[in-house]
């Protein structure tokens, strides 16, 4: 696999770091908000739980046992068979997904900034359905729905507009039940959801080394429902994590393993994706950065380490930028990140379409990211060495100074190349004749073409009614 050839670490460093992660969990431990069911599950699983302080420590043998219980291969389900995602991806490349959350929107036609609406989210879901390299989707923060149930409304919009897998960030402990109910409705029932998990749930640590009640509830209910859990550590190096790369990797890995342990303690065999989503702290302003070199290096290192040390599927930002606009800086940042995370062996690259440290979304940027991701997946397929690919006979049959344009070998392979969508390579004259368009212009044309079509996904009317009923129940229960 191409991704296994590039590593920041030697085998002995991996082993040392692995020992330190387990030692941190055994000696320093993590702190949980009060959650009686989680405390009990962890204690029953062999963890040392102090229910008074919330401190939980995991003896090494306990952690090793729980790690073995976590499956290393599983699927993220979907409502169309060709949208089901096998992890790791069978062709040894990766999947890509859009941003989660985000409240800002760059209008495609005007490039003006405004707040996201549920109509925008519906369009976003339709766009994702049409983009072949974007494998799954998350909801954005819609500013035109009740804030107390924005997550439930958000997921409902996704389920109505795309069959692709949804990864779900609950905004409150109270929402979790309704989000899972929406998943059950979409999948066709609780046991159908367990067999074909059309949702996976995001649980986050509160770096450093702490877990909020909401995230414990997410892990608890998701494990009970057999839903895959995307265990996210989001440390900021120098702020909520050590300033050094190895230190932030150590912290992120420990927090992820703690969440894995919780999931296995509640329900052994719960699929867990390791998500070391690492930021660095801008030492001039204190803001979090996604696209600093330090964040890149730590994210890449964390993915390489977790895969090598624990064999878990990994997932982190593989696109996105810190720039507030889709400019040259933004394009450079995201291209570097996508390339790096692909080569690092990450199973999922996240953040397609996002700007300004994951707070702003741009449909045109999403279209461009779809192209870049396709190019990097092509890169990740490696270089085939066969008799045919070495072209020995073709070379032997070609005179010195000759050419290969009319050879049958070229004819056979001319369509192996990546075919660009919105990237173009005209001469200057050709570019002028075509109207001097840049990639944003071409992305806009493509956007209009896709959105003018009818939505290829039609949500069953019975499901539409059931979704609305669940959303109504959530609004009634959760809005004070």
């Amino acid at each position, binding site marked *: 696999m191409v991704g296994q050839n590039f590593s920041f670490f030697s085998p002995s460093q991996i082993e040392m770091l692995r020992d330190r992660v387990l030692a941190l969990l055994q000696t320093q431990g993590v702190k949980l908000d009060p959650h009686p069911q989680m405390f009990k599950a962890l204690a029953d699983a062999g963890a040392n739980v102090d229910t008074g302080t919330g401190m939980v420590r995991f003896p090494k043998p306990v952690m090793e046992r729980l790690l073995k219980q976590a499956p290393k291969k599983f699927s993220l389900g979907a409502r169309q068979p060709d949208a089901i995602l096998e992890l790791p991806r069978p062709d040894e490349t990766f999947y890509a997904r859009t941003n989660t*959350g985000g*409240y800002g929107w760059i209008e495609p036609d005007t490039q003006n900034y405004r707040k996201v609406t549920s109509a925008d989210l519906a369009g976003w879901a339709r766009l994702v359905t049409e983009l072949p390299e974007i494998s799954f989707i998350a909801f954005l923060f819609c500013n035109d729905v009740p*804030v*107390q149930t924005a997550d439930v409304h958000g997921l409902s919009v996704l389920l109505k507009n795309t069959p692709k897998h949804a990864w779900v960030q609950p905004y*409150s402990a109270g929402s979790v039940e309704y989000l899972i109910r929406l998943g059950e409705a979409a999948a066709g029932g609780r046991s159908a959801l367990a067999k074909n998990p059309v949702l996976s749930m995001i649980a986050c640590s*509160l770096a450093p080394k702490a877990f909020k009640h909401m995230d414990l509830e997410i892990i608890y209910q998701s494990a009970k429902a057999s839903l895959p859990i995307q265990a996210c550590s989001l440390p900021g190096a120098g702020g*909520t994590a050590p300033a050094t790369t190895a230190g932030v990797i150590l912290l992120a890995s420990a927090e992820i393993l703690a969440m894995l342990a919780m999931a296995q303690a509640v329900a052994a065999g719960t699929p867990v994706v390791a998500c070391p989503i690492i930021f660095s702290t801008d030492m*001039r302003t*204190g803001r979090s950065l996604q696209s600093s070199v330090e964040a890149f290096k730590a994210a890449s290192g964390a993915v390489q380490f977790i895969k090598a040390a624990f064999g878990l599927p990994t997932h982190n930002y593989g696109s996105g930028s810190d720039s507030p606009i889709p400019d040259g800086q933004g394009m450079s940042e995201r291209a570097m990140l996508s390339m790096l995370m692909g080569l690092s062996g990450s199973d999922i690259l996240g953040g397609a379409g996002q700007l300004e440290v994951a707070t702003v979304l741009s449909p045109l940027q999403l279209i461009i990211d779809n192209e870049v991701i396709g190019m990097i997946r092509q890169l990740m397929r490696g270089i085939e060495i066969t008799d045919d690919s070495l072209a020995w006979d073709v070379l032997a049959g070609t005179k010195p100074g000759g050419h290969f344009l009319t050879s049958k070998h070229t004819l056979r392979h001319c369509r192996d190349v990546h075919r660009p969508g919105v990237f173009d390579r005209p001469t200057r004259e050709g570019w002028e004749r075509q109207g001097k368009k840049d990639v944003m212009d071409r992305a806009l044309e493509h956007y209009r073409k896709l959105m003018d079509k009818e939505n290829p996904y039609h949500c069953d009317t019975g499901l539409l009614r059931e979704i609305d009923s669940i959303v109504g129940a959530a609004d009634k229960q959760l809005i004070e």
Partner: protein
Amino acid sequence: MTVRDIFNAVLGFDKELVVENVHKELSHGTSVSVILKEGLIAPLDEIGQKFTAGEIFLPEMLAAGQAMKGGLEVIRPKLAGADNLVAGKVVIGTVKGDLHDIGKDLVAMMLEGAGFAVVNLGVDVEPEVFLQSAQEQQADIVALSALLTTTMPAMQATLKRLKSAGIKAKVLVGGAPVNQSFADQIGADGYADDAPGAVVLSKRLLGK
């Protein structure tokens, strides 16, 4: 040994050395006013200029502030009208429903380093707790922080409570999802998009 050694110790972010040198200067009979102005406040001006020029970073700025505070605590009992040292009183906290604190703590530390007296209420703070603290402290500024879009309404609720109780303090808001437009919409007195900006804004609002 002169007051310049105190100045240099602050620039060197060495709190222990600052404290030691301040004691030495006091024992030599140097006036507290000279120690304060030339040894402790003057280096912060230089630190501020270097920070704006990008020559030093946040952790260094915070360390200089801590070093200066160390020296200040030694001379504080000897200063008449010690409260006049304070640039202003600030009550700061993360609003109800939100547990994120790193940005808020950074703002608190930088305000302290700039000479403000800061009461840090922590996270998940009820509007009534902000109000009570603002009244007890006679705060000049109440600073509200939120990281989550879903907790921004709590900023509005807190602001409303403060205004209805007749609090005269300036109310500042900040945090990743917050912007000037939101601050204007809810009637806040100011918004800053990062910690250094919060210090500049606080000084400006109090006419410093």
